[in-house]
């Protein structure tokens, strides 16, 4: 009986937290389907009285949004790819080799992670303009790499560390070069870790707003989170809110798909190594 009571209690809290977390998302979803002319009428309702796709069509016909979507995809994918590759080698070295300054390197990586990004925006803006990479893809990829790498290196080196060293030694005795041992034994075993890191990095780049607004000025490199703030709606007499919500729904979709696809991997990745399996 007692057990039942506690589990009811937990269910209650669970539902409350779920509602708390899901409400903004539902609100966003509902707004995206409301007509831009009537969503502010006198008798408001949570769900739209008339479901309409007009917001989505207006968003997709807007060059501002479609180019931003392209930029977002390109920049996030490139930055993730680069970051995962670099982090993989760095983490492997940190997990396996003993070299001078390893501690320093790790604490520096952590320090970068703690550094407030806002403090960097001004200097970066000036530097990027001087270097001529202001408002370009590369201009966003570089700072994204910088901020994503520390976390990636930390997570991945934890993964590499839990792979028994004997695996690699066995491979070497079997006739593998260090590179072959890395590629054929270590990388496959670390795959869950690589996936987790890649997904987390992708989310970071996909959602990043501060640098995206500060280091871009045109359609050339502006990503979706930044572009949303410049939205005006299809005419100046209309409120852009419903269109912005439709755009938000669109950019949330890849994140949701990724999480659904890889959720088991992510959970396995974040928790494996906690207990010896």
């Amino acid at each position, binding site marked *: 009986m007692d057990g039942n009571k506690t589990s009811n209690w937990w269910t209650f809290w669970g539902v409350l937290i779920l509602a708390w977390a899901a409400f903004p998302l539902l609100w966003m979803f509902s707004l995206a389907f409301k007509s831009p002319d009537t969503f502010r009428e006198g008798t408001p309702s949570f769900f739209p009285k008339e479901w309409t796709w007009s917001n989505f069509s207006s968003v997709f016909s807007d060059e501002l949004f479609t180019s931003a979507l392209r930029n977002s995809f390109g920049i996030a994918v490139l930055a993730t790819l680069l970051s995962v590759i670099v982090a993989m080698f760095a983490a492997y070295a940190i997990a396996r080799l003993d070299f001078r300054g390893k501690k320093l390197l790790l604490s520096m990586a952590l320090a970068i992670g703690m550094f407030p990004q806002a403090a960097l925006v001004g200097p970066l803006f000036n530097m990027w303009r001087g270097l001529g990479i202001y408002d370009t893809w590369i201009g966003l990829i570089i700072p994204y790499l910088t901020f994503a790498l520390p976390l990636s290196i930390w997570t991945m080196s934890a993964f590499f560390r839990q792979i*028994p060293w*004997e*695996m690699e*030694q*066995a*491979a*070497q*005795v*079997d*006739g*593998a*070069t260090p590179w*072959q041992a890395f590629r*054929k*034994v270590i990388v*496959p*075993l670390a*795959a869950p870790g690589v996936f987790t890191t890649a997904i987390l990095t992708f989310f970071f780049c996909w959602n990043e707003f501060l640098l995206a607004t500060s280091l871009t000025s045109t359609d050339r490199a502006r990503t979706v989170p930044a572009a949303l703030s410049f939205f005006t709606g299809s005419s100046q007499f209309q409120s852009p809110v419903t269109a912005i919500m439709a755009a938000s729904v669109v950019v949330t979709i890849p994140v949701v798909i990724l999480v659904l696809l890889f959720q088991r991997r992510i959970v396995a990745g974040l928790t494996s190594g906690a207990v010896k399996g």
Partner: protein
Amino acid sequence: MASISMQHIVKKYGDGFAAVNDVNLEVADGEFMILVGPSGCGKSTLLRMIVGLEDITSGDMIIGDKRVNDDAPRDRNLAMVFQNYALYPHLTVFENIAFPLRLRKDMSDDEIRAKVEEAAETLELTEHLDRRPSNLSGGQRQRVAMGRAIVRDAQVFLFDEPLSNLDAKLRGQMRTEILRIQRRLGVTTVYVTHDQTEAMTLGDRVALMRRGELQQVGTPRELYEHPLNMFVAGFIGSPPMNFVPAQCVDGELRLPFTSFELPTEMREVVGDREYVMVGLRPERFEDHGLMEASKADTGQVFEAHIDVVEWLGNEQYAYVPYEADPALMASLADLAKDLDSEHQRSQLVVALDPASAISDSSSAKIWFDPHRMHIFDAATGDNLTRELANAH
């Protein structure tokens, strides 16, 4: 196939600690050599230096007729079975065994398949080839690890405590299996273990190490019957040899529980030492009551208070406490530490015939033959009776 020659092999770590110190060891072609010793004696380090996973500080490691000190593991063509098997969890059993062949890149898929299937046949793994290591039992994983070793024509097999993760029953089976395969393939084998039973049953020869140094190299029988020193005598044999402090006065040997006239040839080797350590194997004792009179007369009988008796079916162990000079017991405590055993209480372990009716907390007459005891120098631990024919 090849012989291994280790000359003055030293492994020193950065802090100056010598894990392996001046080891000279020859392993003949096709020989089954056991490296044995308590934990931390450097046996695994030595093995890892043979295979190339550990750098050699100084000395020469010669495999076949090539000095391999500076060769990477992959250039030495040796096969190794690790303690935790080190199977590749993301590959099937087939791919695990095929792994070394695939790396060579000079074999067709058909050749590889034939080789792997042959190895699987030998190890009775054929029906498991498509499974993954995580779905296998301990013994099966062990066999996969061996499959990976035998599938390539390696010069030498190296085993690093391969049976220590298995339960006792399986360990016995796998031990025989390893011996059978080694005999069949006739490959030079170096096998590391801390278990003296494995050492005795498997090895053509056994190399016993202590604190990075070789103590004695020889056949299991040599080590058992003619140990060089107290360490070897105490390590080989189960239950271990009893060490009893003794005093030598005018040719009479005084043990804590009995005294007797030293046999002449022993008196010579003991010389003018007053204190010695006497080594008595538990299995050399007998229950006087069960003996024929003619045999009983050849040895020494003493009255013992039996503390506890352990009956095992095929034999039984009786524990006989005795009082000894604490100063003499101190050197035994040191030895016990080296042997990884608990500090020995001053008691004799006596292995008796299971028919013996001796019971707990009783008195009994125990017999032993003084000619078959070992006498060790109390200070150095050297075996003084090693050269004597009878002493075993």
